[in-house]
């Protein structure tokens, strides 16, 4: 009961303002709002344009993160001419981390088959990741940790490892042996790249 007059009053003023000034306000508003619209649209366009370099700046690591294949030099092909058994070589592996680079030395074994074709093995044992070593007198690779044994061409001879030594991709460029060093998952029967 009490708020009836109030409700009435509200209704009346609302009606009056709509009817009374509606026409005049429409005209002035439309001119102003057209300008506002233009200004807003212009501002938004320029803002969007300006945010392009900012976005590219932020997204840089997303698009540049994919590292190029890290092919590393393992030595002159000439040096391997007289090789009869696998030889150990240290290759430098470079990993980029933003503005830093992490460099580490990894051991590989370079072998030559009967036809004289060079190949390279990772020295990491596929069992638990120790480094295998070549034993000339026994003519095989032996892992010092659990006595895994491999032939000169990397095939599993005995012991707990689930597979033979991992062959690395390699190629010859300008008389140099170039190796693509990769890590492989341990304890699985098939070779699986992890990094």
């Amino acid at each position, binding site marked *: 009961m009490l708020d009836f007059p109030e409700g*009435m009053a509200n*209704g009346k003023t609302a009606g009056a303002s709509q009817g009374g000034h509606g026409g005049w306000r429409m005209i002035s508003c439309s001119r102003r709002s057209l*300008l506002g619209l233009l200004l807003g649209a212009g501002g938004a366009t320029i803002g969007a344009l300006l945010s392009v370099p900012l976005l590219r700046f932020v997204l840089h690591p997303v698009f540049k993160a994919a590292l190029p294949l890290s092919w590393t030099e393992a030595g002159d092909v000439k040096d391997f001419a007289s090789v009869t058994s696998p030889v150990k070589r240290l290759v430098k592996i470079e990993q980029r981390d933003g503005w830093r680079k992490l*460099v580490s030395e990894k051991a590989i074994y370079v072998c030559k088959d009967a036809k004289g074709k060079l190949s390279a093995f990772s020295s990491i044992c596929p069992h638990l990741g120790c480094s295998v*070593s070549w034993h000339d007198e026994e003519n095989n690779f032996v892992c010092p*940790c659990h006595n895994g044994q491999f032939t000169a061409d990397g095939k599993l001879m005995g012991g707990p490892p689930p597979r033979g030594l991992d062959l690395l991709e390699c190629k010859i460029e300008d008389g140099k042996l170039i190796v693509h060093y990769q890590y492989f998952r341990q304890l699985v029967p098939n070779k699986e790249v992890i990094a």
Partner: protein
Amino acid sequence: MADHTYDFERERRVTPQPSEHGTLQGWIDRRTSLSDRRKRVDSLLRAVLDEPIPGGASLAYVFGSGLLFLFLSQVITGMFLVLYYIPSADHAHTTVAYITKEVTSGSFIRGIHAYGSSAIVIVLLLHVTQTFLFGSYKGRRKLLWIAGCVLFALMLGMSFTGYLLPWDQKAYFATTVGTNILTYIPFVGGSLKSLLRGGTEMGQLTLSRFFVLHVLLIPAFILFFVVVHVFLFRRAGAAGPIQGEPEALKKSTEPFYPKQVLFDALFALLIIAGLGLLAHYAPVELGPKANPADTQYVPRPEWYYIPVFQWLKYWESGLAVIGILVIPAFVGLLFVALPFLDRRPERRPWKRPVAVTIYAFIFIGLGALGAISHRNDLRDLNIAPQLAKQRAAVDVFMKKPFQPELAGPSLIAATVALTNPVASEGKKVYDHEGCAECHGNDLAGTLAAPTLIGVGDKFDDAKLEGILIKPTDAMADGGMLPVDLKDEDLKLLIAFLEAVK
């Protein structure tokens, strides 16, 4: 009664209720009374946009909003730069080089930020000059002027602290000179310098302090004083043109929106276009990394500090305190106290010859000092070749591709072997004896055995020899075999392990 009921119902039907059930807007509204707030925001916006400008909108009034726009641009570009920047004496230079040379749009964004600081100084001078010539500091605008002076000082502080952050040669040596000036302050000068540097010498702690000042402390103060400045400006109202009858001015009064907004927006566009063109066509440079041992380097501050730099040169004897401290402090005070010294209501500059002459004298003087400094640098037979050499070094550095920094644990073994001949022999023993098979070629360890990096810190020579010959039970359980070597080979191996820290 019946009429009343009818009207009430009709109104409910005709007017949309803000808290209607079923709509998202209604749902939000019931919890936040958002439409009420929106009305308030609308009325606030209207109050801001309808601010009357006596005499109408003018291009002369664009500098204040231009400064606000530039400050915003600095804040945004600054936030993005911190995405890659590291305030460390070891890494700052590498990270800025990374931003400049490698990150997509990095050189552009750094350019907007670096040139933006110069733009702020230019627009600041235009803003101050306009305020001065129009006599807009008078009357009820005293506090507004003082807040503006504080902002001026804070902005100079921003450019001074920001200059050091790239940690290149010019940043390092210009800041060394800049902080040295503090020692001219009697009694507390030395302590102030140490406080700012975080010690007596420039170094990591200086960089940390400047970084905190540049990105946290001074910006917070600037934000606060910008709010105060704008609030006081709105309170006092726009000053309007310097002449004209009050009646005529009243008639030609225009609201802030749309014309002045349009002018301000055009000025902002001009600024960002200018900065963009500069950043793109004249990429901001980075010199070689700071080398504190360089005794030849001739430091030069940023262009807007050159006049002050030249002025300081004239005061080297016992009078230094007067030239370096008393006179600048006096001029600064004169500047801040301007509205209290010049209390006449007269605003037209040609009727205020004394004030205008002093103002012009100071600015022409600063310009002349800058010109003299430039001429001296060109003519001085000792300095000119050195400056040319420094410029050439910057060019050479800029042309080189980005060099990533070698990360901490990289190649420790190889590096040790390279720098220490005994350790180098020791590494051969390590490789030959098959240690690498379990401990890794880079000593980083494998699943079979732990890393040996840092073993030299843990054990001394005697202890190492002991555990190599007779491994502890824990080591033996892990598969470590006793080392059986000739005495001299054992010594070499121990030397190598001791070197790997």
